[in-house]
């Protein structure tokens, strides 16, 4: 039975490769479904056009599963939320149009959610939840951002990458080392078997911004030099190279996170986004928190990578403010923070 004041929302996320749907009741996640797009590994990356087609095939399945697992009926829904951007246009279109059509049929409002805001608000999917204000380092394949979170509605961008995202740095350096896609988890796995004995430069970037493109070039030269001496060098030392690359990326991220926390004098610190699933980043982040006497927040794995539960949490806050979108809304691949 639906009580008068219960708030049930369906949330849809389709900004990149996976299709996801989630049901949230009064701010509590009831289901969190991700339909993976495994075809990608064969192509060595996310294939944009393929992505949008597969989203079309997967979206009904994802929504059905989310409703069934949550034991929620369509007529119980109060609103439908979707990722408006940033992301790939073709992929976003599938989610936005599905949400609009379903809401129109059910005669309920729609809620637009910013993908990067949602990554941060994933911290409110379950306990422990940070208190405001807190600093969040959001790291994924397409983004690297340092954000001061003042409330669920007010966030201030303190710094961001000036070239490649951290996830892109993992993917591209992995490719330079001949690892299969996605290279992030591969580097993580191999790094555990190796030691960070090679040094790559830490870029000197102003303020709270990041840079990862120089690392690519440094690794390119490193590989070239080493292979000249010993053609099997990369193959034989892959674990140590991976450990060194990962160590450098984590170092670049945490140096700026520490700087941001000290500058803003905030002691509630969080990480979010797909790259926060990286085991070394998680471990060293928590060590940094202990050292500085911060309270550190790391989301559960299922809330790190792209998921619809985080869209649902963000939507719940918007629902409380009656912050709805109109039916003429369109996706925005480069949606501003």
């Amino acid at each position, binding site marked *: 039975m639906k009580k008068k004041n219960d708030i049930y929302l369906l949330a849809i996320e389709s900004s990149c490769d996976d299709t996801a749907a989630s049901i949230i009741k009064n701010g509590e996640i009831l289901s969190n479904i991700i339909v993976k797009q495994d075809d990608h590994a064969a192509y060595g990356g996310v*294939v*944009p*056009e393929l992505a949008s087609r597969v989203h079309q095939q997967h979206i009904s399945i994802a929504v059905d599963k989310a409703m069934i697992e949550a034991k929620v009926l369509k007529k119980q829904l109060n609103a439908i939320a979707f990722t408006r951007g940033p*992301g790939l246009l073709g992929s976003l279109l599938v989610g936005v149009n599905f949400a609009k059509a379903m809401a129109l049929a059910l005669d309920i409002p729609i809620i637009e959610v910013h993908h990067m805001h949602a990554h941060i608000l994933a911290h409110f999917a379950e306990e422990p939840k940070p208190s405001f204000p807190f600093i969040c380092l959001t790291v994924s394949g397409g983004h690297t951002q340092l954000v001061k979170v003042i409330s669920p509605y007010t966030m201030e961008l303190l710094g961001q990458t*000036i*070239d*490649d*995202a951290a996830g892109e740095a993992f993917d591209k350096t992995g490719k330079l080392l001949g690892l299969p896609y996605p290279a992030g988890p591969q580097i993580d796995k191999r790094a555990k078997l190796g030691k960070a004995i090679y040094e790559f430069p830490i870029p000197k970037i102003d303020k709270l911004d990041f840079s990862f*493109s120089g690392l690519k*070039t440094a690794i390119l030269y490193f590989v070239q030099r080493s292979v000249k001496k010993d053609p099997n060098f990369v193959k034989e030392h892959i674990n140590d190279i991976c450990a060194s690359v990962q160590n450098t990326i984590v170092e670049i991220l945490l140096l700026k996170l520490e700087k941001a926390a000290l500058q803003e004098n905030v002691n509630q610190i969080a990480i979010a986004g797909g790259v926060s699933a990286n085991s070394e980043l998680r471990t060293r982040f928590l060590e940094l928190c202990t050292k500085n006497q911060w309270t550190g927040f790391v989301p559960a794995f299922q809330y790190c990578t792209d998921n619809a539960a985080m869209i649902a949490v963000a939507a719940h806050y918007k629902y409380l403010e009656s912050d709805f979108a109109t039916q003429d809304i369109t996706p925005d691949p480069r949606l501003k923070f």
Partner: protein
Amino acid sequence: MFDHILHIKEEDELEQIADLVLSNYPDHKLILLHGALGAGKTALVKRFLKSLAYDGMVQSPTYGIVNEYNFLNDEVEEKVFHIDLYRINHVSELVEFGFEEYLMQDARVFIEWPDIGSDYYPEEHIEIHLSLDGDKGRKISIKANRKH
């Protein structure tokens, strides 16, 4: 076949490359950038945008495929598309994200990993090939293709 071949030692010298192309070929609106991962394609586009008087941030377009910049250059409105076809595997995907429409607009267009789009390029365009050169440097080869 190349019109210019240059060797640079430092990243800062990319500015000369951008200035050379912009002053010698002001009407060539399409610039294709060839080179391996880490060769400096995005870094060079960054220099081009700086030489065109854009002072904001230039991020990698790999994830989002197209980055768009609109700004004033000497009181003239300038539109720039920075496109990366790295993640495009099939020609049919170009249509999906509106590749042709980007090329048809009155804008300066920079394209990284341009090979897969070769059927769509007008005759008049610049090709820039970047490669590693020696211990720290880069070799940059430039070819200006003209209308026949």
